[in-house]
């Protein structure tokens, strides 16, 4: 029998709140060290925490998006351990009464979706950041007290690839829900993973090990792959897996022992006496439920039904909430969903990926794109010229009509001008002209292309074809 792995994740997500979890300090990234601090997040004697309700709302929204049960009563606890990055030497977290319980997230290709069960989601505060110099260390408390949401899965994932896919899908949900900036470089999402292996698919889970502080999805994938290989090798050589916490050595590509179960902290959790329990009324939860955004999977299905888009288009457009919103805003103005889809999927998305930009930061507005698409569809500007106009709008914004006018790209339907370009095309390319006369109809397409080239895309292609045919048939 072959080996099966059972993988569970603990995902720490920095929430998108303006202020910290228990004080009014801002959460913005990159400020000079220790400039976003106060008595509360420095843990000064006598300071007391006050709950950030927006963090509670975002956690409940996440729970609702992932199908969790929302606790109408939950509370904060103190998790005690000494750590220089932790101002109070205890972390305010949630132990046995988290905000959200259960829930699931589906992964896998259409037709073979698999539900990964969640155990719980709770809220806690982040720690500070140590900076190490030659022979001294400093601590930057700007991050201390930032709201952190921890999502804990059941050990339902079977491969490193599945873990990676889960994280990607989760990131999409969090972005869709405007829960987190999901900026991995700034450490917005951090992972602890636990993994065990066993023979076959059934039976009791093997002894698990835990890997801490993986900051990239790729890191999660690599660390899991290495740890699974290690566990299988140990077991196949007759050894035993020790329950322990291990560290991922990215450079060496191996996991290393950190501490065994016996050395684990006793966190001595007890209810945080400085905060009242969190009580959420059913009405409050319903108000938040009504504010939930449509999730990617549901939106994909709706796009196919409502706009008659191919599955593929719907999938691409809904992968990013901003892109899907942009698409729908454009269609609301000009209709023609398939045209809009084509323009967004090709020109707009290519531009975004080239620049590494997000759609929210583009100068192009849905109104401008709608106007341009209408102009192309109505023949006022050719498709080729339309692309040139769009390139300009993507860079600088503005109105398509202005760009068309400024660049002289309005489609030319003037007979004299088209006749001139047609004559030139035939004169410059006698070969294809002869082929057409000999009955090879395809040669006409080449000549139309030449007319478009001579007119810098402005010639009305239908009129150009008619003019060429007239001249070639006559001559």
């Amino acid at each position, binding site marked *: 029998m072959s080996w099966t792995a059972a993988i569970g994740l603990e995902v720490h997500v920095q929430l998108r709140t303006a202020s910290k979890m228990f004080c009014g300090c801002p959460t913005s990234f990159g400020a000079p060290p220790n400039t976003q601090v106060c008595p509360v997040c420095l843990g000064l004697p006598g300071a007391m925490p*006050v709950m950030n309700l927006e963090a509670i709302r975002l956690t409940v929204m996440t729970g609702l998006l992932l199908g969790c049960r929302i606790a109408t009563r939950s509370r904060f606890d103190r998790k005690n351990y000494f750590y220089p990055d932790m101002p109070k030497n205890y972390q305010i977290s949630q132990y046995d009464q988290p905000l959200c319980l259960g829930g699931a997230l589906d992964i896998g290709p259409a037709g073979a979706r698999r539900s990964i069960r969640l155990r719980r989601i709770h809220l806690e505060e982040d720690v500070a950041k140590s900076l190490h110099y030659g022979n001294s260390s400093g601590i930057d408390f700007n991050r201390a007290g930032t709201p952190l949401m921890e999502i804990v899965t059941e050990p339902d994932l079977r491969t490193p690839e599945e873990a990676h896919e889960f994280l990607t899908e989760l990131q999409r949900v969090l972005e869709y829900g405007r829960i987190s900036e999901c900026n991995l470089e700034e450490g917005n999402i951090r992972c602890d993973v636990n993994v065990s292996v066993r023979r076959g698919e059934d039976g009791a889970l093997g002894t698990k090990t835990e890997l801490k502080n993986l900051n990239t999805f790729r890191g999660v994938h690599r660390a899991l792959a290495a740890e699974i290989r290690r566990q299988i090798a140990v077991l196949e050589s007759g050894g035993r897996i020790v329950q322990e916490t291990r560290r991922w050595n990215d450079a060496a590509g191996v996991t290393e022992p950190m501490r065994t179960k016996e050395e684990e902290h006793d966190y001595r959790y007890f209810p945080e006496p400085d905060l009242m329990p969190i009580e959420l009324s059913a009405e409050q939860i319903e108000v938040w439920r009504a504010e939930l955004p449509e999730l990617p999977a549901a939106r994909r299905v709706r796009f196919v039904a409502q706009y008659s888009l191919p599955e593929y288009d719907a999938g691409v457009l809904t992968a990013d909430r901003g892109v899907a919103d942009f698409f729908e805003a454009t269609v609301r103005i000009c209709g023609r969903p398939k045209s809009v889809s084509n323009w967004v999927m090709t020109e707009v998305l290519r531009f975004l990926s080239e620049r590494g930009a997000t759609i929210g930061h583009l100068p192009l507005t849905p109104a401008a794109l709608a106007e341009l698409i209408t102009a192309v569809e109505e023949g006022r500007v050719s498709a080729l010229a339309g692309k040139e106009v769009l390139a300009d709008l993507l860079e600088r914004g503005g109105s398509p009509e202005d760009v068309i006018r400024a660049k002289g790209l309005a489609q030319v339907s003037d007979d004299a001008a088209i006749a001139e370009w047609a004559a030139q095309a035939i004169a410059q390319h006698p070969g294809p002209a002869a082929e057409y006369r000999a009955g090879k109809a395809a040669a006409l397409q080449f000549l139309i292309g030449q007319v478009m080239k001579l007119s810098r895309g402005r010639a009305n292609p239908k009129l150009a074809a008619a003019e060429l045919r007239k001249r070639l048939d006559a001559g």
Partner: protein
Amino acid sequence: MSSPAQWTLTETRDRLASREVSSREVVESVLSAIERRNRELNAYVSVNAEAALEEARAADERRARGEFSPLLGVPIGVKDNIAVRGEPCTCASRILQGYRSPYDSTVAARLRAAGAILLGRLNLDEFAMGSSTETSVYGPVRNPWSAEHVAGGSSGGSAAAVAADLAIAALGSDTGGSIRQPASFCGCVGFKPTYGRVSRYGLVAYASSLDQIGPLTKSVRDAALLLDVIAGRDPRDSTTLDVPGLAAEAALMRVGAADLRGLRIGVPAEYFVAGLDPEVERLTRAALRRATELGAQAVEIRLPHTRYAVAAYYLIATAEASANLARYDGVRYGLRVAADGILDMYGRTRAAGFGLEVKRRIILGTHALSAGYYDQYYLRAQKVRTLIRADFAAAFERCDVIAGPVAPTPAFRLGEHLDDPLKMYLSDVYTVPVNLAGICALSVPVGRTAAGLPVGLQLIGPAMGEPTLLRAALGFERERERPS
């Protein structure tokens, strides 16, 4: 005319308002009293004389301009575990030597807003852990009535300063009796408000679910006035209660002084048991008799879980303390003992920075929360807490206030209990149930022992029962006695 330092708070306020005296004169009078007696009593650990005089001058100018605020130019002493911006806040511990608070506690901010001058820091047991102010790194506070006796604790500095006229009034904190017991030992009024009545923001936490700031004063009216200034909902402390303002002093104005007609006073059998000093019992019963003469009705009540209170208290308080005191690690402020590596630094700093009693409580609390012990200690203590709360709720069905002793004995001798922590803990038996239940209580002087030591009577009210409690206390209040 007596010197201003001897006046009560309300008296001082009224005489300042009528321009009979200036703030400068009041502050000078208090400073000279401190000058005369603080070396002996050790009540203040620091006094900011120059700043106080400067603030007094400013207060007099404001008053001359016609400004009025309830405590304009009145000097108040503050226990050294309540943060005042720019002032030391050492909690009488070596580990916080050199630390100055960069921010104001909410009570300090409210006192300032009311015009008060925060002129000095008052001695206490280290981190408020103790019942005698003997665990202070600054040495013990002496009882103003007898230098061989303790002032009580942990707010011993506050109680001694007020009783000996080294302060017009003072703030203390009460976690298990730390305001009431020293008030009883020193002969002043000490008020522990309902949990949540006064903001704890800026009070250095000992046991967060039990701590409460309150006044130590020369009269019941003074306690009402000071409570009016410091009480109220605070957005920085989410455990404060959102209830209407007290206006306690105004309410007292409407009550005739010694009128206790219709008041039902509960007398718990459990508060008059073996171990209670005969003189304390005699003075307590005499006060109760006098109250019935003034129209009060004594009702026998039961508080059956009283005997579990001390054990429950010392488990919950030390458990919370073990976390609250974890931040004193030498990393950010206060004492740091250099060492190789962070763990070693933690160990050496805390070993050198904390005194014996604090270490004892941290270890006790850490143990009570440990895996395998949590259920049998911390959780069980919480269950006892629920039962004690229920005891009081049932009792208050039958009475308006509960009366009994504050402590089993008058002030004991310095060093008498130091080697026997258990005996010291057991002396908290009548005060800790109030903190466990989160209700309000006070100590009001009712007489002195043959040896001349003051004895206070404890009056306990239900949650939010401050107005009734103060009214009752007025009925028990006797003419103020002063130590010589």
